[in-house]
């Protein structure tokens, strides 16, 4: 019974994510509210770690330019992203997004990440494909804070964790991660049933247009 109470108390860190804008270029807005129990978390840097499915990607150059303007701070693993690859040839990405304090409420943190959707395989019937975005994991980077061991456990994260204090800094993640709803994104795809029509008409159009130019070149060109 004691364990349950502790679990209930630790689940106060709530994470919400939503996708703004429409189409192939979106903004992922993540909000984290640390529960009342985590009073010792003052002074810790809050971050979230999320796995982007192969259907989505982030542009490292865009992020670098946002970082220069102090608007976003992100670590992407791996740091080389093929921005042109379609979804079926792309890999998962691990993204660590540092959150800023949200002025709207105490113990609230938020950040926005610009994400882009890849082209998906053409479908047989449906005009849309689905991209599923799982809920992110909350991470704390704390230096010489004493976090409740029942709620937070040390985590291995491939990102720098350092602070102004001289003491040792360490990443922590929530012990009992609650299940959140996934975000589902719809992306338009081509229809496979159009293949033959598209191929035939495209080739006919190019043959017609090239014949027009060929005829003009033969008529007005100087072949002497």
């Amino acid at each position: 019974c004691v364990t349950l109470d502790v679990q209930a108390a630790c689940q106060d860190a709530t994470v919400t994510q939503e996708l703004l804008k429409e189409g192939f270029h979106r903004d992922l807005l993540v909000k984290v509210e640390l529960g009342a129990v985590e009073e010792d978390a003052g002074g810790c840097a809050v971050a979230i770690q999320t796995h982007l499915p192969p259907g989505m990607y982030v542009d490292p150059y865009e992020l670098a330019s946002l970082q220069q303007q102090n608007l976003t701070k992100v670590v992407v693993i791996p740091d080389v992203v093929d921005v042109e690859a379609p979804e079926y040839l792309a890999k998962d990405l691990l993204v660590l997004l540092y959150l800023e304090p949200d002025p709207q409420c105490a113990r609230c943190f938020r950040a926005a990440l610009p994400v882009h959707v890849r082209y998906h395989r053409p479908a047989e019937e449906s005009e849309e494909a689905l991209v599923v975005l799982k809920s992110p994991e909350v991470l704390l980077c704390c230096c010489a804070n004493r976090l409740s061991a029942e709620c937070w456990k040390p985590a291995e994260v491939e990102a720098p964790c350092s602070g102004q204090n001289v003491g040792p800094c360490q990443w922590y993640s929530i012990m009992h991660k609650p299940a959140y709803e996934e975000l589902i994104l719809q992306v338009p795809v081509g229809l496979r049933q159009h293949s033959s029509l598209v191929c035939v008409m495209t080739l006919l159009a190019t043959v017609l247009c090239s014949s027009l130019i060929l005829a003009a070149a033969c008529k007005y060109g100087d072949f002497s």
Partner: protein
Amino acid sequence: AAAGRACGCCAAAWLFNPLPMAVSSRGNAEALVALLVLTTLYLVEGGHIGKAAVCYGLAVHMKIYPLTYALPIALHLQSKRGGREGAVGAGCDRKTKFTFVGYLWQLFVKIQNRNTLLFGAVSGSVLASLTVGWFYHLYGWEFLEHAYLYHLSRRDIRHNFSPYFYMLYLTAESKWSFALGLTAFLPQLLLLLIVSVAFYRDLVFCCFLHTAIFVSFNKVCTSQYFVWYLCLLPLVMPSIKMSWRRALLLLVLWFVGQGLWLTFAYFLEFKGYNTFILTWLAGLLFLFINSLIIVQIISHYHQEAQVAKKLKQQ
């Protein structure tokens, strides 16, 4: 004074053109490549083969597309020496394959003269020394991969102005994908060859047509490619005798074609509507409009040689 004004007008068509301005400010150094291409053509016309070859090697190093100018330049160089020593072929009146092939063979033989070989050797060594001697030394394999090899294996199936984009996207994983990709090269190749042979006497006009055809029939086509032939348009404008109304109509058509495509593409990319079919159809229409403009430019092209040919035929 009239010539000076014409020069000014033509220069203004490039310097104050919003399209190159917009493209250049996006971070593409197209203006640099345009400068190198224009310098190469200027030097070839002036007879300075060595300097032209150096500029040409540098241009190809910066962007691969000037490589297509090799054929018109080679044909132009052979035409400058000795004039017409023996009429070659019988033109398009006798459309027998044998005659045309014989004509091409004779051209091929004539290309191998001192000027062309000098041009080829100098530009080849400039390109080789820049690639291997300098940039490979600085950046290693990464340079070769991103500058050249990337273009061989690149598969960009996202929406763009090219009429082929939807066809390539739908067939990307099918067994026909490679064959279709190759088929897409054929109209481009054939047109470039015919246009080179038909118009090489006016080098700038030939290069303009070359690039316009190359861009319009390419498997990938974006706005920045338009700058490649827009930089040559001010030079060919004086040779094209077209009424203002016709020129304006063609210009408006060009913008309408682009605008239509951009509208459907905007709804696809930024609103998430499934406008694939409409975007593809707009791409086909844009190809037709581009072909129409090229045909109109060819048919209204008036140079002294053209006028002389017409008088001879009458």
